[in-house]
C-alpha cells in the first residue's frame, strides 16, 4: 500500500501527520486504504494532514484493557480535511467534561511500546488543547 502504518508512525515522529488523497476524485482518505472509498480508484498518494482539529466526542476510560492504565481520555478529533482521527487527550481525566466538545486541539503522538498481542509497538495520537 502507498502508505503503511509503519510509515505513518515514522512520519508522525518527524512531525508529519499523513493520510492519502485520491488522484482520481480528490477524496482525502484516513485511515489508509488501497482503494478510494468514493470512486474506487487505486491511484492514491500520500498527503500531509492538518495537525489541528476539533474535538467531536470523548470519553474517560476507567475500566481499561490489560496493558493500559486508567483513567485516560479517548477522543475523536475532526480535521479541516473532513477526516476523523482517534487518540488520547492530554488532559486531567477528572476535569474532563462536555466543555471539551468543539475545542481546538494540536495533534501530537505518544509511543506505545506494544506487548505480546500488539504485533509490535505503535503510536497513539495525542491531542493537546490549544489555549
Amino acid at each position, binding site marked *: 500500500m502507498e502508505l503503511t*502504518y509503519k510509515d505513518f508512525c515514522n512520519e508522525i515522529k518527524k512531525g508529519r501527520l499523513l493520510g492519502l488523497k485520491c488522484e482520481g476524485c480528490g477524496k482525502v482518505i484516513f485511515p489508509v486504504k488501497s482503494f478510494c472509498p468514493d470512486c474506487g480508484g487505486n491511484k492514491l498518494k500520500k498527503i500531509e494532514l492538518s495537525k489541528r482539529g476539533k474535538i467531536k466526542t470523548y470519553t474517560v476510560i476507567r475500566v481499561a484493557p490489560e496493558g493500559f492504565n486508567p483513567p485516560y481520555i479517548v477522543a*475523536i478529533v475532526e480535521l479541516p480535511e473532513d477526516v476523523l482521527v482517534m487518540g488520547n487527550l492530554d488532559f486531567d481525566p477528572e476535569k474532563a467534561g462536555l466543555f471539551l466538545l468543539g475545542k481546538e486541539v494540536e495533534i501530537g503522538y505518544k509511543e506505545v511500546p506494544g506487548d505480546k498481542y500488539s504485533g509490535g509497538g505503535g503510536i497513539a495520537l495525542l491531542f493537546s488543547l490549544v489555549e
Partner: protein
Amino acid sequence: MREVAIVGVGMTNFGKHEETLLEMFGDAANEALLDAQLSPKEIEALFIGNCLGDFAEGQANISPFCASVIGLKDIPTIRVECACATATVAIREAVLTVANGVYDTVLAGGTEKTLVMGTPFATRTFAMASDSRFEGFAGITFPGAFALMAILYSREYGVPLEVLKEKMAMIAVKNHKNGAKNPKAHFRKVITIDDVKNSIMVADPLQLYDCCPFTDGAAAVVITTLEKAKRICKKPVVVAGTGLASAGAIIDQDIPRIKAREKAAKVAYAQAGMTPNDIDVCELHDCFTIAEIIATEGLGFFEHGQGWKAVDKGETDIGGKIPINPSGGLKARGHPIGATGAAQVYTIAKQLREEAGEFQVDGAKVGMIDTLGGDFSVVCNLILKRGW
C-alpha cells in the same frame, strides 16, 4: 430459493459455566435437536460462531470439534467470527445454504466463555474487534466506543446528557425487569434507576449498569427447508429475511448513526417484504443502554434522534408498541459474545411459538433479531415469522 425454517432451538443457561466451550455447545445442540425431534445424523453441515475460544480456553479451530461432540464425522463445518455479531452471521450463512439447496438440514449456533479471562484481559480481547492500529493503541474499549457514541448522540440531537442518561438508566431497569422473568438469563434481578446511578463509572458517561456483563453460554438452532419443517413440526419458524452489512473503523463512520445496521435492516426488510411496522417483537443489540436507543432508530422503529423517548412512554416494554428485548437483552440475559445472536434467535423462536413463558409478547407473529459486532463495524439482522 427455497423457504427456510427453524425447527429446533436450544440454549444453555447464561452466566458462569464450569463447562467447556464444547460441552456448552453439546448441551445447547442436544436441546435443539430434541426440540426438533431430529437425530444428529440428519445434520448435513455445521456453522458455529465463536470469538475468543483461543484466548479463553486455548481452543481455536472449534468447528470440527463441535461436530464431533454431537457425534458427527465427515460433515462440512465452519467457524465464523464477526465479533459480537458472530452467531447471527453463522446462522445467516446456514440459512443461505439451505435456501439454495446446498444442504437440507443444518445446525448453527455459537458458544463462548468470557468470565474465565477476568475483566482486564477480557476487556483487552474484546477491544481487539476495533481497528488495532488506528484505534487500538489509544486504549479504546467497547464501553468507550459506545460512550463516544452517547456523547455524540446527546450533542447531535440536542438531548441534554442528564436527560439521556436518565432514559438510558430506564432501559437498564426495563431490561433487568424482563430478564428477571427469563429462567435462562444471566441476571434475574430487578434493579432501580438509583442502582444504575450509583454504579461505578466505566467510560464516561456509561456506568456499570449501562453495560452488559461478561457471560458464558451457548445456543444452537436447527435449520431446514420449510417443506421439511412442515412435515416434522407444528410450529416451524420461517426465516423471512436476512441482512448483513459492514463498515470500517469508527473514524470511518457517520456516527452517531450506524449505517451498517441501516443497510442490513433495509435488506432484511426488503427480503421479507415488510416494514418496521410489521415487527411484533425484537431482540436487539443492547450491549450498552445507549446502544438500544440507537438500534431502535436504525431498525426504523423510531426516527433518528427520537428513540430515547420511547422507554419513557413504555413503548418498548412487553405490551408496548414494539417490545424490545423481552428476554432481558444483552444487558440482563447476558452477552457471551459469539453465542449472543443464537440466543436472540432462540428467544424470538420461542416468542413466535408462544413458549416464552413470563416474558411472552402476546400474539407475536413476526420477530426481528439485531446483532452488532465491533465498534459498529458489522451488523446482521434476521426477520422471523410464524410458518403455521
